[in-house]
């Protein structure tokens, strides 16, 4: 009885184990294959953009990066104006967004009464979910008129004549331009940075904060002396993540940047970012034209820029998140 009970299932069990191991091998192979596919995908994006941009790189050499002339009629393409626009709008957007995002995260983690934390936090996250084209339209129809009628004339009149810094605010009040684009970008990335900062602030062990409160620290002192030093690395990572978003943002910028390919010191002057230039001029670029290649080359440059920023952000955010 016992011998049949043990001997009969033995081959079956072996068969089951074998089929299990075959299934395991197939499933593990599928998963690993999908992982490798993602690596290939990123590689393919880089390679395709580079190959597409090659004719432009060949025609202008490294001068493509520094050239300030973007003249489709003369077939002369230089990338410095959109590169400048991309970096300036993104950095200005960060400068505007970080204090506000920090304030929101401070409010959500230390100040707000518990019943308020979730609804307000959700509202901020919803703000992050609004598609960028909506920000662009809203900016174009709501912010641009305000800028043109009230903000820019006042600033131009008061600061435009001041020596040295006056050039920053020179020019007519179009409403659109570098500053407006930076403002819309800032509004877009505030919820991203705020949500990351909130999540990061919540990783501080309560006992640290309780000890500080026990010593009589105020809320701000706990924030400044305990929470920030503990989370500094991840906070910078979150800010870099916001910067990565701002660099590649297309539609929100396209609506309000003003589409001009000139270098200008004034922050109210119209300009272009890499993404907005590609979106605006792509429709007029024929297949196999030098212009199309120049746009793809711009895409490659944007990829390199955002890759560096995002990679730094990941390296800063990762270790803490894993703890």
């Amino acid at each position, binding site marked *: 009885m016992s011998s049949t009970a043990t001997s009969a299932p033995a081959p079956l069990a072996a068969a089951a184990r074998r089929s299990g191991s075959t299934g395991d091998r197939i499933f593990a192979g599928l998963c690993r294959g999908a992982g490798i596919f993602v690596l290939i995908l990123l590689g393919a*994006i880089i390679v395709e953009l580079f190959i597409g941009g090659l004719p432009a790189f060949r025609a202008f050499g490294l001068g493509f990066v520094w050239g300030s002339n973007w003249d489709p009629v003369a077939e002369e393409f230089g990338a410095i104006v959109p590169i400048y626009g991309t970096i300036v709008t993104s950095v200005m957007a960060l400068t505007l967004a970080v204090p506000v995002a920090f*304030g929101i995260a401070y409010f959500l983690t230390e100040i707000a009464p518990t019943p308020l934390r979730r609804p307000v936090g959700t509202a901020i996250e919803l703000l992050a*979910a609004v598609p960028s084209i909506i920000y662009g339209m809203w900016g174009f129809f709501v912010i641009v008129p305000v800028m043109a009628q009230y903000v820019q004339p006042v600033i131009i009149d008061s600061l435009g004549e001041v020596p040295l810094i006056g050039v920053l605010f020179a020019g007519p009040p179009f409403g659109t331009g570098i500053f407006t684009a930076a403002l819309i970008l800032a509004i877009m990335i505030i919820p991203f940075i705020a949500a990351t900062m909130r999540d990061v602030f919540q990783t501080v062990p309560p006992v640290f904060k309780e000890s500080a409160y026990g010593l009589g620290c105020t809320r701000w002192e706990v924030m400044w002396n305990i929470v920030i030093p503990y989370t500094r690395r991840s906070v910078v990572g979150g800010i870099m993540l916001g910067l990565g978003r701002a660099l590649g943002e297309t539609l929100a910028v396209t609506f309000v940047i003003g589409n001009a390919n000139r270098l200008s010191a004034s922050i109210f002057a119209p300009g272009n970012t890499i993404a907005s230039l590609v979106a605006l001029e792509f429709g007029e670029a024929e297949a196999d034209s030098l212009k199309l290649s120049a746009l793809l080359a711009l895409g490659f440059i944007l990829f390199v820029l955002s890759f560096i920023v995002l990679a730094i952000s990941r390296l800063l955010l990762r270790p803490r998140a894993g703890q």
Partner: protein
Amino acid sequence: MNAAPRKDMAQGLKLANKRKRTDRILLWLALAATAIGLAFLLSIIATLLWRGLEAMSLHVFTDVTRPPGSGGGLLNAIVGSLIQVAIGTAVGTPIGLLVGTYLSEYAGKSKLGGAVRFVSDILLSAPSILIGLFIYQLLVLPFGGFSGFAGSMALAVIVIPIVVRTTEDMLTLIPTALREAAVALGAPKWKMVLLVCYPAVRPGLITGVLLAVARIAGETAPLLFTSLGNLTWSVDLTKAMSSLPVTIYAYAGSPYPDWIALGWTGALLITLGVLTINIFARIVLRQRS
């Protein structure tokens, strides 16, 4: 004898007041920052409702886009968006699910796993316009034209990293005891993953997919170079296909008042859709805990 402590006390009081004042100032600044953030959300929603309801009618859902001045709706754009989002999600989700499973169950601390995780996170935040250019180079130029299929593939590329992130995050939350119980019963690993792990985190996986849908539903830049947009009725995947975001982009930038009004209506529709999916995704996730 008495003067020194009193002086100390006065100084202490001054310091305490200063600290309290700093705290209060920062409190108000934080409140102001939050108010600003919420004001933007309210302003966007108010503007969308105010401008979007102007041209809202049943017509929007029953008629296709027409030249300016001759009425028309958004039917082809809505259907085109639905088709491309559906295909993009259907293609991207299984790949993302497998990659997330690989990272959580098989990769461990291996170099390949680290690389896949890193690359997937880069893709998650990579500018979507570049994905559009990439698909243009890969699927539009060689095959002789813009197509709904290319648009769907661009969206699929965006879906993958979103699903990877939620899948990995969710699977790593599963208690070891649950896995051990499955293995102790003699289940092979693939059965453990498919029949124990996935069901245990189903709400989380669904949330990931919903968030991915919400994200690609509003994507414009990758579609500009792939499915291009189409002002006539077309559900042919090999031809240029209309989509809501690209139509909004074209309409909002046009000089015609009726197109602009219709653009706002489309913007309202898409924002309501995206926000509803987001809230729904949160509810799904919360039901679990």
